[in-house]
């Protein structure tokens, strides 16, 4: 960023300006000589330069081929390799959930079921209470099949 300014007539003020964060060049010329003021690069300039480099970098052909296919940065989207691995189990998320409402003996009853990967949770609620939990083990459910 180069700007052209007339040479300051008051040298004392010019000497004060030297303490400011920019450079004076050509101050010792003649009275009619116009000096060229060159500002020292500030943080803003570095920021602009880095932004420019970043924009140029994103438009490079290498970057375009790397992120081809509409993929977004920062989000791992390589699901193909995860599904190919047999040791991993894909669990649907969120768990399948169903709800039903009915009136039993004049009381509103909410029934909800959540099918987790290892459990089936069913809740039967009247008046918003949920006080009793009953557990039925997996092997005992399977016993009826065998």
């Amino acid at each position, binding site marked *: 960023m180069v700007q052209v300014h007339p040479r300051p007539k008051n040298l004392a003020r010019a000497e004060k300006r030297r303490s400011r964060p920019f450079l004076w060049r050509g101050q010792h010329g003649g009275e009619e000589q116009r000096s060229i003021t060159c500002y020292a690069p500030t943080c803003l300039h570095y920021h602009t330069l880095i932004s420019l480099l970043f924009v140029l970098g994103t438009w490079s052909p290498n970057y375009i081929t790397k992120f081809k296919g509409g993929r977004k940065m920062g989000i791992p989207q390589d699901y193909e390799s995860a599904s190919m691995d047999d040791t991993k189990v894909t669990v649907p998320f969120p768990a399948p959930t*169903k*709800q*039903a409402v*009915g009136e*039993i*003996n004049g*009381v509103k*009853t909410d*029934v*909800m*079921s959540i*099918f*987790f*990967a*290892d*459990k*089936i*949770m*069913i*809740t*039967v*609620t*009247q*008046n*918003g*209470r*949920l*006080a*009793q*939990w*009953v*557990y*039925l*083990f*997996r092997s*005992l*459910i*399977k*016993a*009826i*099949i*065998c």
Partner: protein
Amino acid sequence: MPLLSDNPTQSDPYFQTIRSEDDALLPSARFQPRTLLGAGGSNRETLGQLYASQIATAIATKSPEESRTLMLGLGLAKAEMDRDIFLQIINLVLKVL
């Protein structure tokens, strides 16, 4: 002759007493539900285990390959051993299975 268990009437399907289609809606005696929390008396505990057995039977009838554990949360206002109330609640549960 296959011997699947010490007590053949308990787990051997060849000696299953309740095999007819009419009685298939009854909860199986093999299920042993356990109360985790909040039994609230023997009456309530029995009712909760009966519900759990009935729901587990319904699940096993619908999907025989089911191997997941069943967790049943109950919050009944009154622990009534009434046939109509029992069937209505089971009907509601069958809607969400």
